[in-house]
């Protein structure tokens, strides 16, 4: 959101080329981080290969438990750093360098706030899979989905007041029920995939 709020107004300020460069750098920077993290998760899984048969049910079980949590049926704390990336980087380093740093930072996944428990399901799945290249591929897709709002923000927030980030946040707040239901649906889908994978072999 810091990036959306900082960079999206560049479009309105007739600096579209700068906006494209910044969002591109943000996407590439985050992709590099995400690929590295995915690869490391898969690599970690290769060290746990002897426990694989015992671990395969963690994904569907965890996904169902997290879905119940997202639905509000149960409540328990999850590990996370309750911080977002540093918006001040924009003023310290300029839009391009800040975008790169934001991408590298957010792309790591573990070092900023995790609002969706599906992330932890993916982490567990990649460790169990124990395939570094597949891990990188999955985390790359995760990042591309995560970076896509930065690309479409100008389309979604066509306002003349230069408050695109705030508008985006307001829209997200208004759609909280929608996202909560998607949280649950996504987790149940991953539980289903996890069950089939556990039965058929990772």
């Amino acid at each position: 959101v810091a990036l959306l709020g900082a960079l999206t107004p560049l479009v309105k300020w007739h600096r579209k080329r700068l906006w494209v460069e910044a969002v591109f750098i943000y996407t590439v920077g985050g992709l590099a981080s995400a690929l590295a993290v995915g690869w490391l998760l898969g690599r970690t899984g290769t060290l746990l290969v002897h426990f694989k048969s015992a671990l395969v049910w963690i994904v569907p079980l965890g996904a169902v438990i997290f879905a119940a949590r997202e639905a509000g049926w149960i409540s328990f704390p999850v590990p996370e750093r309750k911080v977002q990336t540093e918006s001040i980087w924009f003023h310290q380093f300029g839009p391009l360098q800040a975008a790169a740093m934001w991408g590298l930072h957010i792309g790591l996944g573990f070092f900023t706030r995790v609002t969706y428990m599906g992330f932890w399901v993916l982490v567990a799945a990649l460790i169990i899979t124990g395939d570094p290249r597949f891990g990188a591929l999955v985390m790359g897709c995760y990042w591309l989905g995560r970076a896509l709002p930065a690309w479409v923000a100008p389309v979604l927030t066509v306002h003349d007041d230069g408050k695109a980030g705030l508008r985006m946040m307001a829209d997200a707040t208004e759609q909280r029920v929608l996202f909560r239901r998607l949280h649950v649906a996504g987790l149940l889908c991953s539980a289903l995939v996890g069950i089939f994978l556990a039965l058929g072999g990772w």
Partner: protein
Amino acid sequence: MMKNSSQPTVPETGGIAVDLAAVLAAKPAGLQRATWMFVLLCLLLAASLARMELRYELLPLAGLFGWIQTGGL
């Protein structure tokens, strides 16, 4: 909380299928429509990847999770 009065409101009472039907009927703008379009894209990708290895189903799910993570802020 700011509200964009140009966006049609969609009832939030039904399940996901009901909401989807309402969204498609109301043709809302902005984040909500983009999210549903992205969900449909992921479902199409998942359906096409189902012919390959089952674990590839995690790819569109991961993309969707990423979108939800940002949109859920």
